[in-house]
């Protein structure tokens, strides 16, 4: 059985517009892969197709041998594929506690949901004192923490993170990246991390993929990518 995430010849269209063309790559179990590219390159679209929010017109994807094709997000969550989408994926009208509860709402093992909730709160102590507050009263960084905290309560195996640093202050960004790095080591998570913040993302990544205009431009280890002078100026912003 093939293990990890395998994506083959993925193509996604929005009506007549093609957002992603014929992308193939894989992510080994336990690997953290950074997905980098300019605005509109198709990064979010790729994640949305992997989590079942949009359907690819062509190609296939599988996670540890389980085919993702034609599956709904609510089914994929149950397989451990958890997508934290762009822009603080929380429900503003619900309280912090309710947002967290949402992450375990479908799980039968209520004891483990409680344990996961405790873990999330110990990773993000800022949330613990705000449980009864509405999520829209949180700061941007706290909302991102809440989104990740909720995802953890679903006990993810494959975590799809879309620009967790978006709109956050540099210190908070650093904190978020540290947490991602620590979590994946501790929990053995497989992570596909979309980032504009290429350097920070590559620092914690095992590998980077560079996406350009909906196609895969190149991939390599962070050192390889950082060493390429053309990539440095065009995509990594250094």
């Amino acid at each position, binding site marked *: 059985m093939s293990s990890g995430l395998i994506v083959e010849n993925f193509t996604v269209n929005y009506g007549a517009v093609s957002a992603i063309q014929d992308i193939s790559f894989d992510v080994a179990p336990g690997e953290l892969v950074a997905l980098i590219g300019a605005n509109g390159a198709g990064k979010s679209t790729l994640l949305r197709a992997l989590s079942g929010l949009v359907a690819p017109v062509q190609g296939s994807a599988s996670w540890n041998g389980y085919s993702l094709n034609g599956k709904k997000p609510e089914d994929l969550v149950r397989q451990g594929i958890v997508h934290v989408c762009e822009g603080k994926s929380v429900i*503003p009208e619900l309280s912090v506690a309710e947002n967290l509860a949402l992450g375990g709402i479908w799980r039968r093992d209520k004891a483990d949901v409680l344990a996961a909730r405790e873990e999330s709160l110990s990773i993000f102590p800022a949330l613990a004192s705000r449980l009864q507050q509405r999520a829209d009263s949180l700061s941007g960084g706290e909302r991102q923490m809440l989104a990740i905290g909720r995802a953890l309560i679903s006990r993810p195996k494959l975590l799809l993170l879309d620009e967790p640093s978006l709109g956050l202050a540099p210190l908070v960004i650093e904190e978020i990246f540290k947490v991602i790095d620590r979590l994946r080591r501790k929990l053995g998570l497989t992570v596909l991390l979309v980032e504009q913040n290429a350097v920070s993302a590559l620092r914690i990544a095992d590998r980077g993929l560079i996406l350009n205009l909906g196609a895969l431009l190149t991939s390599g280890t962070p050192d390889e990518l950082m060493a390429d002078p053309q990539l440095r100026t065009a995509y990594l912003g250094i």
Partner: protein
Amino acid sequence: MFIDTLLIGISSGAIYSLMALSLVLVWRSTRIVNFAQSGQAVFSTYIGYEIAVRAHDYWISLPLAIIFGALLGSLVDLLFMRPLLRRVKDGPIAEIAPVIATLGLLGLLQSLLGLIWGNAFLQYASPLSAKGFTFGSHTVPFSPQNLFIVLASCAVLVIFGFIFKYTNLGLALRAASFQPEIAQLAGVRVSRVRNIGWAFAGATGALAGAVITPTATLSPNSLDLLFVSGFIAAVIGGLDSLVGAVVGGLVLGIGFSFILQYIAGSVTFLVGFIILMVVLLIRPRGIFGRDAGRHA
């Protein structure tokens, strides 16, 4: 006199509250204002009437009407709303189309009812007395049936208040209505949960129809005006709040009753709309609607 007017207000207020609650239930689970609600409710009431005629028992007909109302609500979602929303997904049309569709459905249901039962006024009787309670020599305009209506609306408030606030189903319903995509990503089966929301609202509408109708008559349009008042009550209460729906209903019922008593019956509806406008001008989200939080 004052007490009597107040009691009349409370009993009609409870009726508006029930109607308002059924609207709020659909709104809370789908963000759709369901104008077909009165048609669904009156359909369920006809079913209750038929059962009562055959079984000679109101108390058997009441729960069956409620179950029929729930099934009808669920069917409206499956047969109308889902196919519609599958076709119109984005843009301004996606917000308006479902509402227009519910108006169309209202017409459809009412003509269907007219075809089956005719347009005559039928009597759906309840064994509870429609005569007011008497204290000594004074009979107040508040009957056991009125009391039952008030209790029914309290029961709906308590049951659904509890479900929304304290159960996973309630959390799923709210999440699905606020942010369907995030709810889905968290594992909520959004279309199934919405369908349950439609069933809850349908059941509440049916309950409203079946407890109100014994105080009046039954015809395909018999709940329409009550529904308009229920709608105003729901908006006054913030459309999103169960407590708001009940308070809105009572404000309206008591308001109408005092106007009828001390001013003139002909202006009640006008005053209803004036109350609505004033509330919307001062608090656009309704008395119990929450203000938007900060947006980052």
